[in-house]
Every structure is written in C-alpha cells, then in structure tokens.
C-alpha cells in the first residue's frame, strides 16, 4: 500500500515531485505541513523537549528522585541542581522529569482506556438502537450532568486518592463525550449504501462495525482525540494539585505544584518549574490540536 499511495495522493493534490529526489511519503509530507505552521513548529519543538525531559532524562541522569542530601534543603537553582532542591533536599530537576513522565503516561493511558470504552458503547448504541441506545444514551446524559472536574472528584472520593484511581477517574471522565461522538458518527454512516451492501452480503454486526463503519468514522476521532488528551492532562494536573492524585513520595506534576504552592514564599523555583512545564505543555498540546484539526478537517481549513 505505501508504495502506490504517494503517487495517487501526489497526483490528486497537485503535489508533483519531479525527478530530483525520492517521492516523499504521506507521513513525511504531513509532518512538513505541520512544521510549516509556526504554531505547529512551536508545538513539535516543545513536545520533543518535554518527551526527552520526561523519558530520557530519568534514564540518563543518575540522580535519584527520592534521595535527600543533608544540608541541601530548598537550594536555589544552580549548576548542580538545575531546578533547585525541595524541602526534603531532593533534586527538583529529576523530580519534575519523573513527575512529568508519570502524568503523561497516566493521562495518555487513561484517555485511551476511556475512549475505547466510549467508542464501543457509542457504536453499540448507534448501531443497535432501541433499548441499548436508550440505556447508554441516558447514562451518558447523566454523566454529562456533572460539570467539569466534579465527576472525577466524586469518583476519587469513591476510590480513594492515588494515581490508579486518578487514572480510572480520568478514563471514566472521557467516556461520555467519546460515546456521544461515536454514536453520532455511526448514526451518520449507518444509512449509507455501503453499510446496506455489507449487511446484504451477510456480514455480522461486529464485522460491519469493525471493518466498514470504524474506518469511515476514524476521522472524527482523530480530530477530537488530541483535544481529549489536552483536557485529560489538564484535569490530571488539577486533581494532582488538589492532592487527589499520586501520593508522596512519588512525584507527579500536580503534587509538585501543590508542594510548590506551600513553599512559594521560601522557594519560588519550587512552584515556578512545574507551573512552567504545565503551561508550556498545555500551550503546545493546544497548538498541536488546533493545527491538526485544521489540517484534518477540510471545512476548517483556511477559515478565520
């Protein structure tokens, strides 16, 4: 497949690559278009830096995020401690790195789990209709009645604070929206001829959904998923800040913000580092989702 798609795509969109170099792959062209937008370039740069910071630094840096060194309490940023130290004399650079990693991994997995559940429910509701649809839709309506982070807070009240229950809460938080999205997408597709054709030749419901409808509804999710990730990372940090996420001594972005808030009069760097990381990360994710949205959604292309 990858062999002939570039040719087709190139012909259709007027992108003719003449003799000088090898034909570029769709992924490469996509990345090039992404970076050409200043917001996209900024987002890619920040995200790469963040990913390196979160996933490479903890592997390379021998400093332990839990180790206290006597007499190094609340030190200002310096050559040996780039982000300073905290109230227990731990190095904040490595703690921020590990904290960012835990928030990123937790947030991403939670969104994926929530969306898988939501998409399954939405497909079922949209395709089966009837009682299944009523039950699922009404449940989703009820969950949607909880404003903002209230649902997540209520769920954590049930499970007890911690990274696992926070991720679970984020996953459930993602279910209502993805369910609605999937249901609406299926309802749009189900009336198309190709679905009728597939059903006529005897495809089972599961096959029609997974092989035919799923592919044609994928675009909707591709546009909305980045936004969901943005929101979930945000809620993850917010709930962590409220003390409902990862418990000490494990670092997470939210708990670093919380501790930094407590010590802000003594150590400005303690609060500023995680706050800037969250701010930059959210800025990058937002820009990325904007640019991706414009690139993937032809209606929004060139508007504004």
């Amino acid at each position, binding site marked *: 497949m990858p062999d002939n798609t570039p040719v087709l795509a190139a012909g259709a969109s007027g992108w003719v690559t003449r003799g000088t170099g090898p034909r570029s792959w769709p992924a490469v062209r996509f990345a090039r278009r992404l970076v050409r937008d200043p917001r996209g370039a900024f987002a890619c740069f920040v995200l790469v830096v963040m990913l390196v910071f979160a996933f490479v630094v903890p592997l390379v840096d021998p400093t332990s995020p839990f180790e206290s060194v006597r007499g190094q309490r609340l030190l200002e940023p310096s050559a040996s401690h780039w982000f300073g130290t905290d109230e227990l004399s731990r190095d904040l650079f490595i703690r921020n790195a590990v904290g960012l990693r835990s928030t990123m991994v937790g947030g991403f997995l939670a969104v994926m789990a929530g969306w898988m559940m939501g998409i399954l429910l939405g497909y079922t509701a949209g395709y089966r209709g009837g009682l299944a649809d009523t039950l699922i839709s009404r449940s989703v309506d009820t969950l949607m009645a909880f404003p903002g982070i209230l649902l997540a807070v209520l769920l954590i009240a049930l499970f007890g*604070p911690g990274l696992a229950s926070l991720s679970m809460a984020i996953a459930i938080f993602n279910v209502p929206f993805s369910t609605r999205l999937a249901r609406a997408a299926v309802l749009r597709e189900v009336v198309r001829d190709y679905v009728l054709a597939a059903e006529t030749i005897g495809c089972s419901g599961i096959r029609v959904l997974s092989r035919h409808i799923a592919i044609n509804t994928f675009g909707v999710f591709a546009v909305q998923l980045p936004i969901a990730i943005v929101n979930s990372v945000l809620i993850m940090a917010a709930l962590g800040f409220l003390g409902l996420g990862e418990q000490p001594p494990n670092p997470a972005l939210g708990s670093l913000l919380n501790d930094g808030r407590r010590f802000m009069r003594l150590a400005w760097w303690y609060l500023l580092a995680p706050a800037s990381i969250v701010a930059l990360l959210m800025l990058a*994710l937002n820009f990325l989702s904007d640019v991706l949205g414009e690139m993937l959604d032809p209606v929004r292309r060139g508007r504004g």
Partner: protein
Amino acid sequence: MRRQVRVGRHGDHRGGEPSRMNYVLSRLVRQFVPVVFIASILIFGLIEMLPGDPAVIALGETATPDAVKAMRHEMGLDRSMPERYVRWLGSALTGDFGRSTTGKTVTDLVQASAPPTIELALVAFTVGNVLGVTLGVLAGIYRGKLPDAAIGVVTSLLIAVPSFVAGLIILLVFTVWLAWLPSAGRVALTEDPIQGSKHLILPAASLAGVIAAVVCRFTRQSIVDVLTNDYIRTARAKGLKERVVIMRHALKPSMLPVVTIIGVQLGGLIGGSIVIEQVFTRPGMGRLLIGAVNSKDYPTIQAITLLLVSTYLLFNLLTDLTYAWLDPRLRPGKGTRR
C-alpha cells in the same frame, strides 16, 4: 385532538405566552427534573456502595456490637436502600443534608462556604463575558488587522494555559515577588469592599481570563459570519455609518451562538472555582469539597455534588431558554416542537 386544532388551543399560536410557558414547563419536566433525579440516585448510590460501615466509622473500631447497632438505627442504616434514598432526598429537598463527620450540620458548612464561591463565580462570569464580547466584537470588526492579531494571540494563550496554572503564576508574581496583594483567605465584599476586592481580584482574574478568551473567539467568529450577510451589505450600501451597521444590524444576531457558549462556560466555572479556591486558599465550596474528599466526609460530598450538579443543570436550562427567546426559529409552536 381534532377539535383542539380547530379551536386553536395548541396548534397555531405563534410564540404566545401560554405556549412559551408550555415550552419552559416541558423542558423543566422532561429534561431538568429527570436528569437531576438520576444524578441524585447516582450520587447517593455511589457513596452507598463504599465498603465500610458508616456507624463503625463514626464510633471507631473499638465500639461494642450493641453500640454499633444502636448507631445504625439512629443513622437509619437498618432500613432498606431505596427507603434510605427517599429519606435522604426528602430531607435534602428541605435543605437538610445530615451531619458532617466534623460534627457540624452539612447545611451550616455549605451556608458558610457558599458566599465566597458565589461572589467569585459572579464576578468572574460577569467580567469574563463583558470583556470577551467586547474584545470579540473588536477583533471581528478589525478582522485581519493589528487589533485582531493581538487579541488572537492573547486569547490562544489564555485558552491554552490552564486557569489554575495561570493562577499559580500570578499568585507567585503578585503576592510573593511584588507583595501587592494577600495570598490567602477572603473578606466579604459587603463588609469591607476594598479588602474584599484585594482578596477577590486574583482568583477572579484567573477564572475570568479563560471565559473572556473563549467568549471572545466565539464572538469574533460570529461577527465575522454575520458581517458577510446580504443585509449588512444593504445597510452599508444605503450609507449607514459603520458604527450603526455594527450596533443596529450585526450585534444582536451575532450574539446567538455566543449565548450558548456563555452557558457552557458555567460548567467550566464550577469546576474551575474548585481548583482556583485551592490555589488562593479561599474558603469556598470547592475547598469544602476537597477537604471532605480527603477526610472521607461523605454527607458533605453528597450535598455539594448534588448542589453543584443542580445549579449547573439549571443554568443549562436557562441558557436553552434564552436561546429560544433570542432565536425566533427555535420558539415552540412553529413546527419545530422539541
């Protein structure tokens, strides 16, 4: 049915008073009440599902079985779950949410913590929307020019950076570095307006910023869309001043989509104030809720969640009604019954 149509009781009055009342009532009965009802079951049921006997928790592990039994009877735990739910909801409707684990009644706790939150939400909501609409109209009028670009940059920043992180940063700047404003607590505006606003300005600004940014984006797009209409061209062609064109012809229709987004903002405002109160240590409902979650004070959690959910749904309903009132096409009795 036929007779009614002929007499014209339900069929054909256009936006008349009774039919609008019907619309309000039907929205209230068919959507608001059931969803609040189901949400209340959920809030009650989830907490009920928790492991552990509240009577044992209240008395401590060392309590004798007899004492636990007496306590269970006193707390009504020996009744069936539906019965307990009905009793809980019944007393909740009369404003009695039981006793918090701190010993005070939940109603007292909520009454003490509601004013700071309402104050914060009202100020943030008003400032955010006024600012957002004003900036949005400006950006829409000056589309593609410098003011538009400047406003665009500011709004993307405000939308992207979460309000509580922005709050933490301005907290650091204004209370620690510049030391202009107090960093914690709250003074009622009615008691001491100057001290009160000093405590209110930073949290309100962090919440208002996001609202203003979102509303501004919507207003701008809406103005831009409306300005492409033929009747705007007509208004300009007949020689009206641009100011009149905007104020008389473009503003009202362009506010339609904005009203929806203003309503949606309320959900964010409720969630946002929970976190923002924590950032600025403001003794409101958000702090009460988080404190209750950390100390497993379930009656308080139930009460606050139910209150916030009902408020949110009520405002959603009001938004829909405002929308129907502004947009004649959505009014009932014109073929678009919903």
